[in-house]
């Protein structure tokens, strides 16, 4: 068995003295593990960092075997993210989210979204909106997508500013007004009727994290006996601090 694909490194675990088991999210073969000979050595260590993009050749005698990877770096992002706290927490959190996908099951949309997110991670605010969108996409990919296209109560497609915490459906301003304290807020950058408006405020980012965090926890993490990763909390904390610093300046 042999295939060649592009992938993004999600994690690396040392195996024996010199090898490593590398976990990739590949475009065509999904989340896929493989052994890299010499992966624990100093030569390959810079390449085998979460967030780096690679060209991967996977070989095994049988399809169900772990197999061996031959990897070549195509975009080395890890060194550039190390200096900023939001980026380093973000990469760790994105990798832990992608790890929720079943193994060896292709998710090309998620792969492309992860690549776009990692490519656009320099600006703190943009990184936050990308990460919220990625969490939303992960919910959909795992079968718990939110219906943000029309109001769950009236069917209208305009002024969708709330989300029902029960159904995950959008709720319009008029229909949601009596229960506004119980509903989650839908930030403008996630609204489908926003006419391509991608602006955000600090409150929008907080609303976005509350929204995806609630459904990820209830539908995906808690049934697996997990909670939100420390990296997610660290990312939100880093974004909040950065925005507070910018506001003071």
């Amino acid at each position: 068995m042999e295939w060649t694909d592009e992938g993004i490194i999600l994690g690396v675990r040392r195996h024996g003295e010199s090898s490593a088991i590398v976990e990739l999210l590949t475009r065509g073969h999904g989340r896929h593990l493989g052994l890299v000979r010499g992966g624990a050595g100093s030569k390959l260590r810079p390449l085998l960092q979460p967030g780096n993009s690679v060209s991967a050749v996977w070989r095994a005698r049988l399809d169900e075997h772990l197999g061996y990877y031959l990897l070549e770096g195509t975009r080395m992002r890890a060194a550039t993210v190390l200096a900023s706290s939001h980026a380093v927490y973000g990469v760790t959190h994105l990798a832990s989210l992608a790890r929720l996908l079943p193994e060896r099951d292709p998710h090309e949309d998620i792969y492309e979204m992860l690549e776009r997110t990692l490519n656009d991670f320099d600006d703190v605010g943009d990184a936050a909106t990308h990460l919220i969108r990625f969490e939303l996409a992960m919910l959909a990919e795992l079968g718990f997508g939110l219906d943000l296209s029309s109001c769950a109560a009236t069917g209208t497609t305009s002024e969708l500013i709330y989300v029902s915490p029960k159904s995950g459906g959008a709720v319009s301003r008029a229909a949601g007004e009596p229960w506004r304290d119980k509903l989650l807020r839908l930030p403008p950058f996630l609204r489908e009727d926003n006419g391509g408006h991608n602006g955000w405020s600090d409150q929008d980012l907080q609303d976005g994290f509350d929204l995806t965090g609630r459904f990820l926890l209830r539908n995906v993490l808690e049934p697996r006996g997990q909670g939100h990763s420390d990296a997610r909390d660290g990312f939100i904390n880093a974004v909040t601090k950065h925005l507070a610093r910018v506001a003071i300046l």
Partner: protein
Amino acid sequence: MAIAVAGPEIERLIQLLARLPGLGPRSARRAALHLIKKREALMAPLSAALQVAIEKIQVCKVCGNIDTQDPCTVCTDPRRDPSIIVVVADVADLWALERASATNGQYHVLGATLSPLDGVGPQDLTIDALVARAHDPKVTEIILALNATVDGQTTAHYITDLLQEAGVKVTRLAHGVPVGGELDYLDEGTLSAAMRQRTLF
């Protein structure tokens, strides 16, 4: 099935030696044979040294270093600067810095770095003890000498957040071109990090 060429005691010695890092079954067999040939000159002193080490080795309650005394030699050395704490992930990193005589400060060994893949969380590291040490009025600087990996730097940022209230200067090691490194062979990430952190010449 392989036929044993020596008695069970010698086979056991070979099996145990083969568990050491860097040694496989073949090299373990060679090492065992070498020890047996130099029984008086090498094997007996090695055995005695191992026995003493078993009895005396302790983990320093202050910094987490391994030594035969608690607090360790580094912590009790009066020539050390108590205002600086160098944070390392592992005892091997501490020894590496000591070999290089890179710092005169004291150390703090975390035990590992945060790693979601390996299930290592903040509760598995000695971060609480570090935060407590950082609140000592004598301490003015914490140097985060952690690996330049995503896990290492995630740990560094996490610790930095926790140390904000301690009122100490938190620094980290520089990232860039290694001594003997040729630019042509460096990955683009390291190069761009080195370029960003360039210094006045």
